[in-house]
Structure formats: C-alpha cells, structure tokens
C-alpha cells in the first residue's frame, strides 16, 4: 500500500500485520565493558537505533569485527555476530555476504585493526564494493592493549610504543579510501554529535555497496585530552550538508554553525574536504550508486542445486578422464 501503483491482497496485508517489531532494548545484549565515557557507547546506541528504525530482524543481521575495544561491539548486539581475528573482520564479512546475500552485514573495526594489520583487506574490500556497512572506530590509539600508537595517531603523540612522541605523520583513512578504485561511499562523523552520527550510519546502511564510515571516537581512558579542543569549540567541526547528503536539523545548526554545502557526487571536492584535519569535516563526502557490487557481478543467480554442483564437478573431472577405448584421444 506504500506505492500507489501496486496493490496487495488481503492475505498479504494480514501477513504484514504480524511482522515483528523490536524496541531498542531488544537489540541490546549484556553490559558493555567499555570505560564510561568511551565513544564506542555512542556508536552502539546509534546502531541500535538504526536496527529498530529499519526493523532489522536480529536473525537476519550480522556484526563482524576484528580485535580491539571497538571490536567488542558484536558482543553487545543481540543479533548474529562474529568476533574474529585481528585485522580480518572484512574477509569474514565478505564470506558471510557471499553465502547469505540476504543478510544485513555490518563491520566494526578499530584504527589498529583496520589501518595497520588489516590494511590489505581494507583496500580490497573497498574495491570489491560488497553491500555492507563498515564503521571505523578511530580513537587514534590501540585501546585494548593499553595505549600504543596507531597509524592514525597524530604526529608527536606520546604512547607506550612512542615514548618520545610518534615520528610519522598520521595516515588519513578518508583520502586513502577515496583513492581506491570502485569506492562508492565515504563518510566521516564524530561520536559526540549523535544526530549526525545516526543520519550518516543510516545513509551508509541504505547505500547499496560498500559504505566506509570513519567515526572519530573518543578514548577517555588513554587520550582524555586529545579531542577536547574540538569538543569545546563547535567551530572546529565542519558540517557538510546537501539534499543528497545529510540535512542538518535546526537544533544541530544552532550549535554547529560552520557549514558547507557539498554534493556527494563531487569526487574532486570530496578529496579536498577529506584532507582537512582541522576543522573536522562531518557528513557524506562521496557517494556513487552506480558502482556494481561484487556479489551481483559474481553470483549469476543460478540456484546451487545438487544437480548443478554435480554437473560442474563432472565437467571438471572430464578434463582429466582418459577414455580407454578412444585411443586416438587423450
């Protein structure tokens, strides 16, 4: 009854009436072991809100992660989840999606998990462009292992592995992602503006393709002062908005007055915006719905029936068969 062109039968209508509805608490499992004040809590809340608002069925939803504080997220979701091995969240998620394309797949990873040990998978996942949503919880530190510099740590950051301050310029996950072929969705948010966080995750979920969302996340345990200048000065956040991107509510606009209208189809401007570290740009930087998804290109829609599998195997075996009576052929 939503689209006027197509009507449904009474029985279909009845079936829809009995569809299940969930509240936010239905998606919650256990008590998060994150430190109080940790930005991961905000991300979890936004995700649970999305699940409720989209009516995602817990048994049709999967959260996949690697290792790290951020990667504990699947434990707190009352859905399917896979707490994998360090850096390998993406290959696991890709396998899930290939085998069960009908599931909603989310990936939660950290800056260490994604940008150091898992960097190779990150690049290829962007190129594969499978329909899933990846959230990079970027607290610019290895949190779980108690404060080692990560590739996104700002230069000069003192940590357990860089007692004299880190030597290298930080890696910029946005410019890296935008440079990979087949990139189809890139966004950035900060964990402390919940409304925009929710809107961006929601847009990422609705995008058909691989959505990369970098979330600048506070780690009050190890870096309590790191984000403070940005937290206390709304002018240091640049709100990207557009009718095809995030639309900023009057409430948010009242506090965050620095804005730029940015069309997410404009790759050149997206790259310029991505390189800005201060102010922090938030919103959708780039979106391209035209990039094909690997699962669509790869799967031909044929059912994998026993006979089809057998047929394929026979064809392979035939290549190695020597026919005893056909002496001329081998």
């Amino acid at each position, binding site marked *: 009854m939503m689209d006027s*062109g197509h*009507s*449904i*039968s*009474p*029985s*279909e209508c*009845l*079936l829809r009436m*009995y569809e*299940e509805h969930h*509240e*936010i608490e239905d998606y919650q499992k256990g008590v*998060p072991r994150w430190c*109080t*004040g*940790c*930005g991961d*809590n*905000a991300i*979890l*809340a936004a995700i*649970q*809100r999305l699940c409720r608002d989209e009516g995602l*069925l817990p*048994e049709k939803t999967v959260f996949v992660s690697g290792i790290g504080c951020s990667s504990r997220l699947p434990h707190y979701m009352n859905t399917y989840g896979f707490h994998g091995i360090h850096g390998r969240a993406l290959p696991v998620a890709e396998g899930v999606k290939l085998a069960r394309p*009908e599931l909603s797949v989310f990936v939660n990873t950290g800056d260490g998990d994604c940008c150091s040990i898992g960097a190779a998978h990150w690049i290829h996942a962007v190129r594969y462009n499978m329909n899933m949503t990846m959230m990079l919880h970027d607290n610019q530190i290895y949190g779980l292992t108690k404060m080692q510099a990560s590739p996104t740590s700002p230069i000069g950051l003192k940590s357990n592995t860089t007692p004299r301050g880190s030597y290298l310029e930080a890696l910029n996950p946005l410019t890296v992602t935008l440079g990979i072929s087949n990139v189809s969705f890139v966004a950035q948010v900060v*964990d*402390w*503006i*919940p*409304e925009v966080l929710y809107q961006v995750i929601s847009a990422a979920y609705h995008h058909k393709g691989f959505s990369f969302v970098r979330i600048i996340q*506070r780690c*009050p345990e190890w870096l309590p002062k790191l984000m403070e200048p940005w*937290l*206390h000065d709304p002018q240091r956040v640049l709100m990207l908005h557009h009718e095809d991107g995030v639309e900023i*509510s*009057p*409430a948010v606009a*009242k*506090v965050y007055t620095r804005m730029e209208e940015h069309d997410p189809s404009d790759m050149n401007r997206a790259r310029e915006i991505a390189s800005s570290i201060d102010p922090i740009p938030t919103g959708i930087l780039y979106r391209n719905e035209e990039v094909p998804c690997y699962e669509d290109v790869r799967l031909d829609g044929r*059912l*994998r*029936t026993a006979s089809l599998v057998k047929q394929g195997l026979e064809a392979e075996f035939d290549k190695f068969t020597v026919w005893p009576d056909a002496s001329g052929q081998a």
Partner: protein
Amino acid sequence: MDGKIQDYITFFLTGRLDGGSLMPMDPVYRPAAFGPYSDLTSLRYDFPLVLNRADAGRALQSLSHLVDDAVADLADDPERDRIARHGYAIEMDLRRELDVSGSGDFHELWHAASDRLSKEREDAIKDSADLLWNLFNTEGIILDAERSVPFRAVRHLWSAVQADKAKDFRRKTERLLLKLRGILNAEVANSATGRAPEALRAGVGAGFTNAFDFTGMSKILMDSKPISALSDGRRQRIRDLIEVLEGQKFFSLGNEEAATYEFAFECSSEALKAYKERHAEAVSLTRALKMAELEAAGEYRERMHDRIFEGFGERGLGFEDLAELPDYLVCAEADELDAQESSGIVEMLSAGIPVKIIVRTDDALQPSPVAEGHANLGGRSKSLVDLAIGLADVFVLQAGASQLFKERDGLVRGLSYTGPSLFSVYSGSGKESKGIPAYLASAAATESRVFPSLTYDPSAGHDWSSRMSVGNNPSPEDDWPDHRLRCQNSSLQAETVSAPFTPADLMATDARYFNRFAIVPDGADDEGLVPLNDLKDFELEGLPEEVPYIMLVGEDNRLRKAVVDLRTLTEVRRCLAMWHSLQELGGIHNSHAERLLAKERSERALDVTVSEAPLTVAVTVGETATAEPEEVEDAIAEPVGDDPFIETARCTSCDECIQINGKMFAYDENKQAYIADPDAGTFRQLVEAAEGCQVSIIHTGKPRNPNEPGIEDLIKRAEDFQ
C-alpha cells in the same frame, strides 16, 4: 422544385429510386479513399506479422519494421543501400507469396523468397538476405492479415506472457524446494543417525574408507551435536509443503513427463468449469508458496501464522494472490456468441477470475437483430466492451486487426494485468466484405470510427482520462481522418478532393447496404448535393434542400458521387456521437474542461490586477504561519525555571551520568539521557555528572535542598552548567 432534386429527396427519405435521376448502386464502386490501395501487395505496411518466439516484449513483430530496423543497424556499412534494396525486394516478394498462402515459417519463406529473387536477378541477394536475417534475431510463424490473425496473435502473446510467468514460478519454486529440503537434510545431518560412523563413512566415498577412524570421528561429532531438532509440527509442515509444490499441475517444473493443466479454451463455459475444478488446488498452491517463503526465510511463527493459513482462501482469493498462477485464455467468436456463452464471459469477467478473453468480430456491420434493416455499427463488440468497462476492474482493449502491431504494448499490458482482461478485435474478414482484403476492411472500420481503437486500463490511474486511451486511432483529435485524393476533373484539370472516410463509406462496401446508396450519373451538376461530412449536425426539420453524398470510384478509376439515404445519415451521426464520447473519456476535447477553461479565460480577462493582489498577501501570511511551529519543535529545550535538564538530543550515551545515579538519570527510547527524577539524588551528584559529561549538556539548575552539605561550594561549581 426541379425534378432531379425531387428524385434525390425521395431517395434520401425513402430509399426509392423514382424518376430516373439516380442509378442503383453497383458492386463495382468502392469508396474513393480505397483508390490508392487496389493492390496491397505492392505497398509497405504493418503486415505480415511475425509471431516471434521471444519474450513478450519482442513477441509480435512486423516484417516491414524488422527490415527497416535491420537497415538502420547497417548505418556504417558501405553496401547499405544495395542491401536495403535487396531487403525491400524480398519483403515485397514474401508479401505476394503470403497473399496466396496466408502463413508459414518465417525462416523458410524469407530464404525461399531470396532464392527465387537471386535466380531471377542477382546472386548477391542471397548474401543480403543472410545478413538481414541475422539482424532480425527473430524466428517463428509469419502471417498475413487473415481471419485467424486476432486469435493467433493474442494467443501467441498470451503464451509469451505465460512463459515468463512459468519461468518466475519455476525459479521461485526450485529455490523454495531447495531451501525446504535443505532444512530437512540439515536435521538429518545433525542427528545421531547423521553422525553415526556409517553415515560418515558413506559421506566420504569409497577411496578413503580406511584413511579415517569413523568411530572416533562420530564420537567427537556426537558430543558437539546441536541439541535442538525440528519440532514434529514443523517437520510435518515442511514435508507437506514439499508435497504440494512438487505435485502441482499448474506449471511444468522442467519434468516433461509430469502432466500440467491446459489453460486455453474455445469457450467460456469450458474455462469456467476447469477453473472451478482446480480452484481448491490453486488455493492450496498459493498458500503453500506463501508458507514456504516464510519457512525458507526462517520467519514462520506458528503462534500467528497457523491461524492465518488455516483459514486461507476461505473467502476467495484476490487477483494479486492468483497473479503467480497461469491466466485462463478464452478465444470466442463474437458473431457466434449465444446467450449462454455471452453470460459465461460476463460471469468470468465479473467474478474475479484471472481470465483473458479474446473476442473476434468478423462482421462489424451486422444488421441489427431488433430493428429491421438497421445496421448495428461495431457489432456485438460494442455492447460487450461497454459492459466490461462498466465492471471497472477489467482491462479492455478494442482494435481492428490492422492495428494489432501498433497495439502490441497494450496487448502485453492487458495480458500481464493482474485481473481479467477483454480483447475485442475485428478481423476484417467477414463474408460480406468479400473482395476487400482483410487488412483494408479492418483499417477502414478503424478509420470510420465504426470499430475504433481503445484501451481501458484500470491500473493506469483513478480517473477516466488516465484509464481510457484512444490515442492509437488515426487522427484521434478529429471526427474522421481526412483523405486527400488527387484527381483530374472533367476538364482535365488536376484537383484535390477531400474524402473523409465515414461509416457510410464503410457501408458502401457491404452488399447488405447497397440499397442505401444511389449513384449520381456522369455529367450531373452539384445542385442539391452536399458532402456527407457537412451534414454532421443534420436534423430533419422540414423539406431538405440538399442531400448528402459520398465519393466512390469505379473500375475505370473515375470518381462518382453516391447519394446516401436518411437512415444511413442517422446511423453515421450516432456513430460519431459515440466516437465523441470516447474522445472525451480518453481526455480529448473534454467538454467539462473546455467549458471551465472558457469561463476562466473570460473571468481573467475581466480584471487581472484585482485578482492578483490578495493572492500575494495570502501567500505571505501562510508562510509565516507554517514557519513558527517548526522552529518550536526543533529548538533545544531551554531551562524552565530552576529545574535541572539535559540537552537529550546531543547525548552520546556514554553512561557517565547513569553510572553516578541510575535513578536520577535515565535513557529514553533512543538511548539518550534525560533527568528522570531530579529528587532521586543529591545536588552534588548533579554537579558531578555535569562536570563528567564530556559534551557538557547536563544543566544543574538550582539546588532543591538548600541544606545539603557543602552547598556553597557546589553552587559555585554549578555556575558553568546553567
């Protein structure tokens, strides 16, 4: 009064040939507009048609369009002109061949024609024929306009639509069966039997039986065996579903031996009987499809779904429910319809049965069965079509056979429509129109508006003009399309005569109505004669001064005038009135809209400035009025008096305040904090929470208990959080 004119008027009023100023109608005369079409085989037009074995969108093709499209595809070929010439020659030859044989295999006939021509003319024709053939990408039967065309074409399209449905059904059912069997198989694999040593050994294959310790393996697997098995109810339900899906006879599932039902019928009673007999099975299959879909997705909940499916179909099924199953096809001949068959058709159309009915009219000029000698223009089709449109959810398409190619999209739409459809097609091959090729007769019926093209599509919108369309008729805006004939007058001067093709012209081709026309002899002047076209508003109010005539042409190719009698003029006017109401329903010349427009125009002309001024004011008022509530709704909550509050929309759910006092602070439905009870804790807790909140959105308000220990200091600390 001139004796000649008296004769004219007598014939006009009575049909009697008194006097001698007029001559009786002779079969050698044909409507003047037919003049250029004496040999159709030398012209290029939509026919012959090709019943292409392809999906519905490409299933109906026209030879001349195929050739044109193929030639267009050769845009870059240097030989293009020569190939095109060869193509047209083969097309012409084929058309001549079909004029005799009627129909045949397209591939065979195309190449036979090319062989003939290459022998007569040049060898290269064969190469062109092959090249064009490959570009056609078409195979099947080719047929000329003949009596069977309406049935064959519609049935062919129906089959194509059913084939698409069958493909969807097969894909869906195979997927569901795979899933359902998978659920049962998984249970077996996970059970004690599935993990017993023998089962494991059988799963590995003969070559490796000694390589594994199956008993040991089985022991490990037994320990990790999932405890949950299928409930008895679910297992039985899945088995039942598999049985229904495998046993259905509505579509072939690729197994050629399994018998499937026939859905094409010659008459409505047979179709209705079959429908009723199979109804219970149709309900059970539809139910099984819906249940299996839920089962396969793991979404079947006995608690609620059992109830829905127990009573499924008790009150009949809707069109949407039946849309996945095949549609019934009934091919009926309008001229043969008896009362029983007609009521059967109406019953099927009105009872919500997914039926596609094609009614073929061979005689569009049937004499009226009630009024002696009157013509029933449009034949039985008209009343059936009117009735079907009146039922409101029947898709209706009426057209002459000559229009079929042009109407192909409409035909496919009607055949794909979820619900009953009626197609009424005039073949142009009545016994009475002998000597006139079917194509020409049918085109003439369309042009004269005796058998106009119309489509009534209930799914196209809610009002008449979106549902009804008459745009496929020639010159749909006019009363009749105008034919301009170039000829020589008696003084050998070239002149152009306008000859619209009216129902009277059509009747002049039919021997049953010859007595309504009388030929004006050569040499008579125009006195007392006026073209029928000019008497469209004629009312008999006294002795007429002029009588209507139409133009005919004889075998000598000379134009003749024929006086038309009053009965015919009245019938022409009735036919035109019906055409006008069709035009109006189809959104052409809407009388109501035209009246409104005229009124609006005259009012606007009265005073432009006055009407514009208040309008501007109204807009401004409206804008400010709507802007206000929006702002109120979205604004951040401001402190109300001295109460503490949180800017909830900015809360990052960080748990900080909740950890301090889970009764004072709580999360809302979006998991964002608000002050649940300001009295559930101390002012100290409020201040500490405000200090701890990293996004500084907790506002402490004024202390509620002025006697709280250390209150002075707390009030100071709270100053930043007001």
